């Protein structure tokens, strides 16, 4: 699973932003198992993370992502497997002896210490000379823009300021690896978005390796170069955000990441490909008729298939599009049942004549949209074969 970042069976859009893979990875998680009683919180998981990466662990609650992070920090010990940091197995090393720091979900700032003492805490434990400590603290305070607040106690700070103190404290020791456990969950939406950008900026500037745990897809996609999606203690897919979205490896991933239309069907081999077209496969579905998809680079191993198409790739029009447009080869007629205006986009639900319900979202590119569709209006939903992802099940 670890090396499988490129995915040959998927569409043309799925070129991953491969990390610099030369040399040893900074961190190698090797078949790590963590059990709590009979429950396998982390189940034979392997993953390589390279120096300078911003990696996100994404997954529903209880998927094991936090347990994995806590094993990296040293708060949990794996039952099986190895955790190699720079080639050295740190699985059994206690947290205070690891060159790894963590930013805690609720920050875990020491309430009896002021901002300066909180940031200093780790440096004092490292027995750094006091002149160096002072210089480092000043540097950290400036880095997270907390100048003038050094003497404040945590409860005299706003949520955003506390988040900055926690970040400065975890960065002060210059860890080889910084772990961030839902670092922005306590912030409101606006602040969270601006902090995401600052976090990326900081990571790039310091050249450090960050691993963030989050359940927020948008956050993972914004900050991370690569995302590992976890479910039931396993990594379902490790990929760059774009690949994860455009080339999900499984039906579970497709449904977990973003919105998607799923139509079940079987490969229809009776249909002869028309000579004018690029190689297409026909998939016979019960609820949406025959859907044409791009031929995958590897043949399917199973016959039960599922066509997945993102709502923004389903276009709507009042009349069928011009017939020789091959991008519009999939045309499904139906009736608009639901219209949700969301500002930037409008989301439609269309009940197809064959039974399926299809979602389509269209960007509102003009202030006055004279083309908007209304409920009970008959429309044609059309999409290109290249925009379909076929998942085996």
């Amino acid at each position, binding site marked *: 699973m670890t090396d499988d970042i490129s995915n040959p069976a998927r569409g043309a859009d799925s070129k991953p932003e491969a990390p610099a893979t030369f040399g040893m990875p900074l961190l190698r998680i090797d078949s790590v198992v963590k059990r709590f009683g009979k429950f396998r919180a982390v189940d034979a998981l392997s993953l390589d993370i390279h120096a300078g990466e911003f990696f996100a662990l994404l997954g529903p609650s209880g998927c094991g992502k936090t347990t994995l992070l806590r094993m990296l*920090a040293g*708060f949990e010990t794996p039952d099986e497997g190895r955790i190699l940091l720079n080639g050295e197995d740190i699985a059994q090393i206690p947290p205070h002896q690891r060159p*790894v720091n963590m930013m805690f979900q609720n920050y*875990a700032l*020491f309430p*009896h210490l002021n901002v300066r003492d909180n940031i200093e805490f780790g440096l004092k434990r490292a027995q750094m000379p006091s002149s160096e400590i002072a210089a480092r603290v000043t540097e950290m305070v400036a880095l997270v823009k907390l100048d003038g607040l050094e003497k404040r*106690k945590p409860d*005299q700070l706003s949520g955003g300021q506390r988040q900055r103190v926690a970040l400065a404290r975890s960065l002060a020791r210059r860890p080889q690896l910084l772990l961030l456990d839902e670092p922005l969950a306590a912030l409101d939406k606006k602040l969270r978005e601006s902090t995401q950008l600052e976090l990326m900026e900081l990571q790039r500037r310091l050249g450090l390796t960050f691993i963030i745990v989050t359940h927020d897809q948008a956050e993972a996609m914004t900050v991370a170069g690569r995302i590992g999606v976890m479910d039931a203690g396993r990594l379902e897919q490790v990929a760059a955000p774009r690949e994860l979205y455009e080339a999900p490896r499984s039906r579970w991933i497709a449904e977990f990441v973003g919105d998607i239309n799923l139509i079940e069907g079987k490969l229809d081999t009776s249909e002869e490909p028309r000579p004018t077209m690029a190689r297409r496969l026909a998939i016979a579905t019960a609820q949406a008729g025959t859907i044409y998809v791009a031929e995958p680079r590897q043949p399917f191993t199973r016959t039960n298939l599922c066509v997945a198409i993102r709502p923004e790739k389903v276009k709507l029009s009042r009349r069928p599009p011009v017939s020789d447009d091959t991008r519009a080869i999939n045309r499904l007629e139906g009736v608009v049942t639901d219209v949700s205006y969301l500002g930037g986009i409008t989301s439609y639900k269309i009940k197809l004549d064959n039974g399926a319900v299809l979602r389509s979202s269209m960007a509102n590119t003009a202030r006055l949209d004279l083309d908007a569709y209304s409920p009970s209006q008959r429309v044609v939903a059309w999409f290109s074969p290249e925009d379909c992802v076929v998942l085996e099940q």
Partner: protein
Amino acid sequence: MSARTIFTRPARLAAIAPYLWMVLFFLVPFLFVLKISLSQTAIAQPPYTPLFDVSEGWETTKAAFAALSFDNFRLLVSDDLYVLSYLRSLMVAAISTSILLVIGYPIAYGMARLPQRWQAVAMMLVIVPFWTSFLIRIYAWINILQHDGLLNQILLALHVVSAPVVWLSTDSAMYLGIVYSYLPFMILPLYATLSKMDPALLEAANDLGASPRQAFWRVTFPLSLPGVGAGVLLCFIPIVGEFVIPDLLAGSDSLMIGQTLWLEFFTNKDWPVASAVAAILLILLIVPLLFYDRLQRRQLEQT
């Protein structure tokens, strides 16, 4: 908006209720005691003069005030008996409270780290002794510690000692009794602060390079100081005035102030001196209370 206007009438009543209680059941009785302490002994019923009798008019009341004197307080300061008694009480309280803290802290710490359902059980075990009368428990200790008591029998049977050891009527027996009786008062406030503490703070300390021992002294202990303060006060103050335990378990060669007070009141029938002893004891005990109060107020102001 002023703070006063946000209180409704019932809320204001509820707010003054504790003050009313304090005035009725503490301040008024204390003023009686203070007044008696400024009187002289007399062979009468009650055994002191002067008595106020407002019904006899303003002049007699004024004369009664004029007759008040500080003689009793002068006596307390000049006579070694009282000074030593106060000093012994403070010393016994200080030593006992230190022992209580050293024993109580690890117990409270252990309790706070038990799994949730075991914490309730541990709490019960701490409280269970309260179900038996305090006096009966002290008499039980007399039974255990006396010449042919359980402790000596066990020590003899195990050949640790060859002859019975004198336990009863020693300071050790008194400290044992005090520590045994007051332990819950030390454990409960400590447990309350320790169990409230976010375990993530300790993980953060570990993560930042602190060994478990450093994490305890840099994070757990400073954060538990309010509980330490509460436990120390809850033990120290009543131990200073303790009467029953030293009377039953300690020897009679030196007395704690509670015993001296009892002697003055019941044996010597000298109510004014006994009242003066009580008044000074109260003043002695108010000092640490005020200090603690200021400490807490300063913490509140910081937040």
